[in-house]
Each structure stands twice: as C-alpha cells, then as structure tokens.
C-alpha cells in the first residue's frame, strides 16, 4: 500500500516535470520568435524553473500527474473549478499557438499568391502531348514556298530541336529572326513544322521504367519475405529458446527496416550504386521485404489450426506440415498482398525517383527544375492514369483471389 503511494507520487512528479518543461520550453520559443530575445543557457534555465514549479505546485496538491496516477475519490467538481482542468486547457492553447508559429501558417499568402502557381496549373491543363520540330522535310517545304535562304540559315541552328508548344517555338523564332522576317514567315514556319510527340514518348518510357522497377522490386522481395514470414509466425515457431529468439530477431529486424522509409533507402542506394532505376529498385525491394514479411506472417498466424493438427497427426515432419497444411491456406492471400504491394511500389517508385531512384519521378524532377510546366503536365497526367488503372485492376484481382 505504502509502496503504491510512493510509486504514484514519483510518477506524478515526473509527469509534472515533463509538463512544466514543456510549458517553459514553449514559452521560451514564443518569446524568442516574437521579441527576438536571445537567452544563454536556456536548457538549464528551463530545467531549473520546471523543477521549482513542479515542487511548489505538487506540494500545494495542484498537479496534473496526481490526477492521472493516483486513484482519486469521485468528485462532482466541474473541470472549471479544478487545477488539472485548467492545465489541460492551457496545454491545448499553448500547443496550438506554438504549432501555428512553427509551421509558419500564413492564410494571407494562401489567398493572395495564387498567381505564382499559374505556370504549373496552365501546364496541367495544357499538357504538351504534341510538340513541334523543324525537320529536314520542313526546311524543304519552306524552300519550295520561297522562304529566302538567309532566313533558313538563321533557322539552321534550331533544326530538329523539339518544342513543346507553338508558343515556345515562337519565342525561339523571335531570338533568331528580325521583326520583319518574323512577321512575314512565322505563319508558314508554323505550318510546315513537323508535329512530334517527343515528350509523351520520353515520359512513357520513363513510366515503363517506373512500373518495371516496381515489379522487379516486388518479385525480388517475394522469396525473402516468403521464407522470413514462416520464421516470424508465432504459431509455427516452437516454444523453445531457439524458436522464440528466431521469432523475435526476425520480427524486430523487419519492424526496423519497415520503419525506415523507402525514400531513405533510395538516398543510400543512389550513392551506393549510382542514381538510376537500379537504386530505386533496391530501395523498394528492401522496404517490400520488410512489409511483406509482416503481412505474410500475420496471415500465417490467422490460418485455421485444424489442418495443421490433422497433418501432424498423420506423422508428417515439420516441413511436410508447412507444405501441406500451411501453404495451401496462405497462397491466395499471399498473392493478393503481393499484387497490392506492387500497386504501392508503383506509387512509391515515383517519389523514390525524386531522390535519385530513376524512372518518371526523376524525369518529373528534371522538368520541374527546368520550369517546363507543359512537360510537367504530361508527366502528372500519366502518373495519375497509371495509379488509377493499377488501383482499379489490383482491387479487382484481389477480390477474385480472396474468393479462391
């Protein structure tokens, strides 16, 4: 009884200490950011102040920790009349204010600066699926239409260069030709410029890269996850020291690897094997192994134990039990999870591309940095289409597999 009382006081003390450290820390942050006052040794000051406040308030019985950890008598006091009630209100208010400052929330910017996003939004609504190019053929046709050689020579340097829209082409024409030439020949140049779906082709091949790298990452992850999932299933591991250790080690490693985001793996591998789809594939593979091991092993833990019992009773050995009683029960959920994983990997591959994982993510980053919004538009629409199609089909296939 006495032990319990001491324990609850210690718990209350540390809760209060954390509360006051938080309060003083937040206050310091606000003072610092509003009045730009620099204080020295702030950490120690905050700790000492918090300690003093904790002791003073605790000795007066005004404590949040006491409310949480000691079994209190039922009182009909409204929260407005209690100390802990006000501390919680204070906690919520100060958290909100500090949050607002840290995140630099600025509604004014949100409502007045839409024009900054005009480039990208015009790109999205006018993706440059079809571009223009002055090819050898265009030059011949222009010659036949009596465009003078002087003008054609000036255009020689932009021969075979791809333009996403006529607007971009005319910008280059302005640089190359003088005002009169421009006025006279612009329309015929436009007329004979060859249509070219260059950006679409580039984006499509980058997209294929992304889909295949996601597919390979999934396929390579399957055998590893398959084997590991058996070792990470509580019901299959014997209840011996060795069995428990294997289970715990596999589970822990899988959890750690899963909590490291694929984007972090991509950064590591893009340094290791160089920027490109291979780095992205490795990153997604590592993450998929960890995620699938967890999903698979949970599936094993949920199987019907009956057949396992029955197969054991025939005198089968452990591997035979796994092959005949466990695997038939898990094979279709495994397939469903794997397809779902591929679906997720395609989405993640786009993000992973941004940090050096290749594929359409990398292309998007490049085009965005070059401010080619019409190209960015093409890429965004393609990504959206693929994600939508994968989502639909994988849901359908998974539904079929569950019925099996």
């Amino acid at each position, binding site marked *: 009884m006495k032990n319990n009382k001491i324990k609850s006081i210690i718990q209350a003390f540390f809760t209060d200490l954390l509360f006051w450290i938080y309060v003083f820390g937040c206050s310091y942050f606000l003072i610092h950011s509003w009045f730009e006052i620099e204080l020295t040794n702030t950490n120690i000051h905050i700790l000492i102040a918090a300690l003093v406040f904790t002791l003073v308030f605790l000795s007066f019985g005004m404590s949040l920790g006491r409310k949480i950890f000691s079994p209190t008598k039922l009182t009909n006091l409204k929260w407005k009349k209690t100390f802990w009630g006000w501390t919680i209100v204070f906690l919520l208010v100060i958290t909100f204010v500090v949050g607002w400052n840290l995140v630099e929330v600025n509604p004014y910017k949100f409502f007045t600066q839409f024009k900054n996003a005009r480039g990208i939004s015009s790109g999205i609504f006018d993706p440059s699926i079809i571009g223009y190019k002055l090819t050898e053929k265009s030059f011949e046709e222009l010659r036949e239409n009596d465009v003078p050689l002087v003008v054609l020579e000036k255009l020689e340097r932009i021969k075979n260069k791809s333009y996403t829209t006529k607007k971009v082409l005319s910008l280059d024409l302005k640089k190359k030709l003088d005002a009169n030439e421009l006025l006279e020949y612009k329309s015929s140049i436009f007329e004979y410029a060859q249509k070219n779906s260059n950006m679409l082709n580039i984006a499509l091949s980058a997209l294929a890269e992304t889909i295949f790298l996601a597919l390979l990452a999934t396929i390579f992850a399957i055998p590893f996850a398959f084997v590991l999932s058996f070792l990470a299933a509580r019901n299959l591991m014997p209840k011996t020291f060795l069995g428990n250790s294997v289970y715990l080690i596999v589970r822990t490693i899988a959890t750690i690897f899963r909590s490291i985001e694929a984007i972090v793996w991509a950064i590591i591998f893009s340094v290791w094997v160089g920027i490109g789809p291979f780095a992205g594939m490795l990153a997604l593979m590592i993450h998929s192994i960890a995620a699938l091991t967890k999903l698979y092993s949970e599936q094993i833990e949920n199987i019907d134990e009956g057949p396992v019992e029955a197969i054991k009773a025939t005198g089968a050995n452990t591997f*035979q039990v796994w092959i005949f009683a466990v695997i038939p*029960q898990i094979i279709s959920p495994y397939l469903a999870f794997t397809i779902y994983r591929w679906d997720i990997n395609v989405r993640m591959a786009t993000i992973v591309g941004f940090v050096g994982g290749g594929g359409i993510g990398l292309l998007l980053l490049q085009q965005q940095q070059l401010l080619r919004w019409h190209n960015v538009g093409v890429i965004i629409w393609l990504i959206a289409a693929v994600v939508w199609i994968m989502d639909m089909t994988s849901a359908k296939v998974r539904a079929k597999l569950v019925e099996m």
Partner: protein
Amino acid sequence: MNNIIEIKDLHKIYARGTHALKGMNLTVKEGEFCILLGLSGSGKSTLLRCMNKLIDSTSGEIYICDGDVVKATGKTLRRIRRQIGMIFQQFNLIKNLTALTNVLTGKLGYVSLGHSVTFAQHKADMKLAMDNLKRVGLLEFADKKVKNLSGGQQQRVAIARALMQNPRVILADEPVASLDPATADSVMRYLGELNKKDNMTVICSLHFLSLARKYGTRVVALKDGEIVFEGTPKEIDEKKFKKIYGEEAEEVEIK
C-alpha cells in the same frame, strides 16, 4: 487379445491452470470399439490428443502400439503417429485442395519430403488413395475441391485420409457432432466397418447414446477429468446416464 493402448495415471494441467485430466487409467484391447462419453469440457478431447501427443501430457505414461508416446520425440514420435489415424469434429481437411490430395496426405508419415511433393509420380500411392476414396464411396469426387463437398462427404474424405495411414488405431474426436443425424449414422457405419472388417481399434468420443449402443463394444464415461463409468453400452441405464451428464439431462434418441 493383447492391450494396444495402456494409459497409466495420466494428468494434464493446462498453462492457464485447468486440470483437464486427473489421473486417468485406461487399457484398450486390440479390436475394441471404445466410446468416450461425457459433457463438453470433461476431458475427452484432451485425452484423445494426449494419445498421439498433439498435446503434451503433464505426467503419467501412455503406451500405444508398443510405443512410449510420452517419451517419444522426432522420428520415433512420427513412427507412432503414423499408426494412429485421427478424425476430427471439424474434419480438418485442407479446404482448397482436392479430395484426392487430402487423402494422399495420410501417407506423409511414411515418405520423405521429396517423395511427398511428387505424389503424382508415384503410381502406387495414387492407386491406394483412389482405392480408399472408392471405399468411402467418393471416387467421382476425387478431383473436387474439398470445400465444395458436403459435411458428410468431407468427413468421409477424412476417414479415407486416416485409412491411407493403414492405422492400427483410429482416434475420432466427436466425428459426427457437426453432421445431421442421417449423415452421422453413415459416417459411424464406416467406422464400424473399419473396426469389424479391418480389426482396427477405434476410440471415439460421442454425445449420442443411441450411436454408442449401436457401434460401441465398450463405453468409458468421463466427468471433470475422471472416469466415472466403464462397461458395455447396454449397461448404461437412466441412472448412470444422469450420473454422467448431470441430473438435468434427458436422453435424446437418434435413429
């Protein structure tokens, strides 16, 4: 006749503290059809599962087919298990495999891992499995997935699986409790036939006295982990029935 099963002072205490078997002594002779009676929770399932070590017993001795079950591990245990066929209330078949494959799994205790994944290449096994399916009247269902079969058919597949082991003993844990009365009788008839024709020893837990009287050569009744009655099925009158099942119980007739 020699004793095929000998159980001496068997105790089972579960991890959560339930004392399921309290010093069980039981001897079964070869060729007997022994019925276990008793309420749910009286220890019937525990007793049956201790016999082939699906559950480890806490103390006591068990000898089946000249093997020491309690001490057996690994290969020795599997040698004992393959002589003991087991039939369950929920059939415990692998539902998304075919009836034939399910029957073949009865052979697992006799073959190597490599052999067991290439059953289709072993004509003798395939023929034996088909013969066993034929015996339980399910030859035309060989290639059907088990989940598409009815309860009675599933239990017959389970019997064929047990037959595949060529067992000396069959343990049946409430084999008819999930079946309707007519199907129940047909399943019991197969067990009776195995007992009479093939001289297999059957230990079968049941709830229906009428079935016990029809097929059993001996009845053992359990209550709270102890044997409260041992004798022939005919000896059970209303008084003994009430002793086993409690004062409230009425006998339900099933034909």
